């Protein structure tokens, strides 16, 4: 049940990612989607196999790197 609630939140944020007027709206939507994805992977790893939890750390750090890179690249 809880994954449907977070899935509803993810789809609403995805709608903002599709029709966001500026680049900053799209980047902050992608960041939020990555955070919800981290929660999904941790939930799945708790339910099935705990070894999958490293994927969540890698996805979160890559999302951080991408957002900081875009924010630095746009200003120059």
């Amino acid at each position, binding site marked *: 049940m809880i994954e449907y609630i977070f899935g509803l939140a993810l789809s609403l944020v995805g709608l903002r990612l599709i029709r966001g007027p500026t680049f*900053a709206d799209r980047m902050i939507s992608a960041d939020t989607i990555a955070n919800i994805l981290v929660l999904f992977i941790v939930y799945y790893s708790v339910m099935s196999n705990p070894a999958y939890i490293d994927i969540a750390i890698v996805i979160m750090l890559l999302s951080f790197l991408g957002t900081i890179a875009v924010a630095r690249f746009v200003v120059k």
Partner: protein
Amino acid sequence: MIDFITQVLLYIGGIFAVIGAIGMLRFPDFYTRCHASTMISVGGVTLALFALVISQAFALSVHTWKMLLIIGLLMLVSPTNTHALANAAYKVGIKPEKLVEEKK
């Protein structure tokens, strides 16, 4: 008891996430959407991860500490992202929708 606390925290986190997502759709400009995004990340996802940590708390293994590491990194990373993006948007020139100007 542990199951009950886990379910309650998970549903509170889900309510936070849905309210933040509705705000993400309906807020007028970028600087207010930052607020909704922080509500999803810190309010919803961190609370749900904390519920999962509580559900695994008595099996103290490496994975519980990894979940705590994820919570710490997420509370460090998410405000940094929002700050950097708001700084970049202000320097590029995105204006707020309803600008409050000072009268002289």
